[in-house]
């Protein structure tokens, strides 16, 4: 049986699969939030989701529109102050996985969400880092999700909002950072993991129907593919239904709110 799905859905579901039942996951909004909640609603019911607004162990029935939506608090194990969140829970080293998105990303997992152009005279002023600088250094490892574009996946990021592997190799450890940093990149086209030595992101599997050219044409650096390049497993019916139901519940709820 053929199942139809979008590249967006594939990205979210592939990200969900990377999360386990014992993970303590620091969640951003958008794709990371959907992925984390799909994981919770499928293979990882006991996963702990933390949003930087202070909600710990939250289990929203619909996807929040912001990291501080009321339902996150209603369904949380507890809600703490933001200073406590950043001191005890993030800096305290209790988060296993941090999920980040990026406006710009380079091959070493360095992320820019601050400015396009020069910091002091930017062509586009982006929102800034928020929690990202310390999420990137304090979480056990970092998963990144983003849609591939030439503007987004660049040779050199315009600004180091959060540090990945720097120029690769042992750059990260050399700075005294003890956490793993970016270990996974999931785009709408492929699953990438860093080379163990160089730390450059390598494509490990292409999403179904995606070609190497597809990936290269939407990426600003020369892409390396794994020798044993695979194909990402297509979404299962359970995964797809779970994601679509979640999105449908979310849309319905927000429609009611503004009705």
């Amino acid at each position, binding site marked *: 049986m053929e199942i139809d799905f979008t590249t967006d859905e594939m990205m979210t579901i592939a990200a969900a699969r990377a999360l386990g039942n014992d993970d303590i996951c620091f969640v951003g909004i958008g794709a990371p939030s959907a992925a984390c909640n799909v994981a919770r609603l499928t293979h990882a019911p006991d996963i702990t989701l933390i949003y930087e607004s202070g909600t710990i162990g939250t289990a929203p029935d619909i996807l929040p529109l912001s990291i501080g939506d009321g339902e996150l608090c209603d369904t949380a194990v507890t809600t703490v102050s933001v200073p406590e969140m950043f001191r005890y829970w993030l800096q305290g080293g209790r988060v296993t996985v941090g999920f980040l998105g990026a406006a710009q990303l380079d091959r070493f997992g360095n992320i820019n969400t601050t400015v396009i152009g020069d910091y002091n005279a930017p062509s586009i*002023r*982006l*929102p800034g880092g928020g929690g990202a600088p310390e999420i990137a250094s304090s979480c056990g490892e970092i998963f990144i999700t983003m849609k591939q574009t030439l503007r987004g996946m660049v040779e050199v990021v315009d600004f180091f909002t959060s540090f990945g592997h720097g120029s690769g190799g042992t750059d990260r450890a050399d700075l005294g950072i003890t956490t793993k940093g970016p270990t996974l990149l999931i785009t709408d086209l492929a699953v990438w993991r860093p080379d163990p030595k160089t730390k450059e992101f390598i494509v490990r599997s292409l999403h179904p129907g995606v070609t190497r050219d597809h990936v290269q044409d939407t990426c600003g650096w020369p892409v390396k593919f794994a020798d044993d390049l695979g194909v990402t497993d297509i979404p299962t019916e359970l995964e797809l239904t779970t994601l679509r139901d979640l999105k449908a519940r979310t849309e319905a709820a927000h429609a009611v709110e503004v009705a």
Partner: protein
Amino acid sequence: MAKFQSLKEAVSDNLKDGDTVAFEGFTHLIPHAAAHEAIRQNRKGLTLVRMTPDVVYDQMIGMGMVDKIIFSYAGNPGVGLLRRMRDAVENKWPKALEIEEHSHAAMANAYEAGAAGLPCAVFRGYKGAGLKDVNNNIREVTCPFTGEKLAAVPSVRPDVTFIHAQKANKRGDILIEGIIGVQKEAVLAAKRAVVTVEEVVDDFDDVHVNACILPRWAVTSVCVVPGGAHPSYAHGYYTRDNAAYVEWDKIASDRGLFQEWMQKNVLTVDETVFEKRISALKGAA
């Protein structure tokens, strides 16, 4: 000691031209009504502080009230960028905007240090991050036991902090519940603090012993403004007006449209409009 007064009086008494001011709220309980009153009173030369400047800071920047902003994430949550702030940074319209940019961890620690009466906050942060190259207020201290280099930022000490809370009791103590953000710290870090509340109740006898309560002597003014957080929300009272945030993106995209909207929805009204704005959002909170 908390004084019950009108929002107009509270803003007039507590916010001066040139002040460093925080209107704090972390998605939840953002003090929109207080900020709109500040806009009506046409304060100038402000330094705005907030972890997550959003729509209401976009409005103040667009109105030319702001010289400088100290922040860690400037976006329209769930929607996108802040177009008035972008216009100020990219095009100096209506005037140039100085920015002092931090991470969330730094800002949260800086408020905490302010509440704790310290001159600076010390934490582990900014490792490999570019902000420390563009912000001279990100420095280092060395742990005198391990030699580890830790990040230091100045504490945040606003002249005045505005927050919105669910309840005051008759004595003027303030109750904040749900996503409490950095509001306690923002109040305690400030020289003066103005709190708008949804309602006044007799007492807090039925409230949990460890709930987030600010005693009346930690607060300068209390103003009853039902709906005062709209389009943000007040847990237990009304939900977030997501449509308003989406609409803002369109309004803020055009200077003229922005000015018209401000004229109609802020400058020519008063804080009583907030109760009407939340009438359709009650109950689901």
